[in-house]
Every structure is written in structure tokens, then in C-alpha cells.
């Protein structure tokens, strides 16, 4: 069984440019998470989806970050425009059934903003 798949693995962009990350969760997992991991820190939740509905986006900086999960399967996280402080690893995770906090993580996308 395939795990959580993320792309790209690495991304380097100049500040003020847009960037997007893609995630495909484990098949059958209705819950999808985006976490951000700053250097030397543990991951922090940005947004949680139950199917196509964003049920917790309280930690998502909505002025520049957006996310979608249109068909309740794969998801895209976008930053526009990127700032230097957005440099981090962006992790996608999924779980099942709803309410199960045991999450399975992808390898992450390492973003560097220069």
C-alpha cells in the first residue's frame, strides 16, 4: 500500500513568488492534514480536512496561505506571495477514521525562500 505522497520534495523560490505543494493521502483516508515544521521545531498544524471540508484552519495564515481538497482526495497548499519566514518543511498527513489522531506522514516538501 502506498503511503502519503507529496511533491515536490524540494523547492527554492524568491520572496514574493507563489508556490504550491501537492499531497495525495493514503487511499481511503478521509482526514488530511497540512503541518509546517520550522527548523529545530516539531510540526505545527496548519489545516485539517474531513473529506473536502476544511474543519480546522485556525492556524492557517489566511492572508497568504490557501488550501483546497476539491474532491476529498488529494490536496494543494499554496503560498502567495512567499516570505523569507515561510522557509520550512511542509508535511502532509492523513488518518482514518475521523477523530483518529494517529496520522501517517509524507516525506514533506522543503521550501527555501531566498
Amino acid at each position, binding site marked *: 500500500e502506498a503511503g*502519503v505522497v*507529496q511533491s515536490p520534495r524540494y523547492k527554492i523560490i524568491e520572496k514574493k513568488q507563489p508556490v504550491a505543494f501537492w499531497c495525495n493521502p493514503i487511499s481511503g483516508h478521509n*482526514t488530511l*492534514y497540512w503541518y509546517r515544521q520550522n527548523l*529545530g*521545531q*516539531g*510540526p*505545527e*498544524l496548519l489545516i*485539517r480536512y474531513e473529506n473536502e471540508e476544511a*474543519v*480546522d484552519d485556525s492556524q492557517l495564515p489566511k492572508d497568504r496561505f490557501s488550501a483546497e481538497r476539491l474532491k476529498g482526495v488529494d490536496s494543494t497548499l499554496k503560498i502567495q506571495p512567499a516570505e523569507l519566514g515561510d522557509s520550512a518543511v511542509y*508535511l502532509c*498527513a492523513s488518518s482514518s477514521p*475521523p*477523530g483518529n*489522531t*494517529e*496520522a*501517517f*506522514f*509524507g*516525506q*514533506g516538501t*522543503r521550501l527555501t525562500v531566498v
Partner: protein
Amino acid sequence: AQSVTQPDIHITVSEGASLELRCNYSYGATPYLFWYVQSPGQGLQLLLKYFSGDTLVQGIKGFEAEFKRSQSSFNLRKPSVHWSDAAEYFCAWGSNYKLTFGKGTLLTVNP
């Protein structure tokens, strides 16, 4: 606010030695607790979890952890460390449908 604390930022052990990584949580009710491992450039892999029941839980790769309510701790142990165990280890607490992570402990294994 609820939190997870990993007091040790970096630990170095010799291969074959025993290991204990500390984790403390602050939360009133019985939490869901996890240990994850992250190798360089990789995502997080679940080592073990505690939801309820037996307070000593066994995980993958020979790891175990013990939940001690009186000490608000969930320490990770391994009797004999292998060089491949070098990685960063994260303790996490699960509630409200999300995980709250500690800052991690980096493990270095000397030959």
C-alpha cells in the same frame, strides 16, 4: 495551554548502550500519546502510541514507552541502540483531532 515538553535537545549514546528519551505533557485528562521518528530528509514515522490500558507499550524497531500519569511522562526506551537509530525523535499528544508535538530530541549514535 496544553503542551508537550522534550527536555533534551540532543543526546549522544554509544552503539549498544541503552537509551531513554524524556517526554512530559501538561493535560488534565488521559491523553493520546505518540512517539515519532524522523530521519534526515524524511517524514515522520510512528514508533508507538498510547491510548489506554497497559501503560507499557511496545513499538517498532525494538522501542517501548511507559505512560506514568503521576509524573505526566511518556518516556521512550530502547535497551540496545543501533547506529541506524540516529535520527530526531518527537513526542506528540493527540487531542481535538490534531497532534501537538514537542520540539524533538536529536539522537547521535557513536560507533
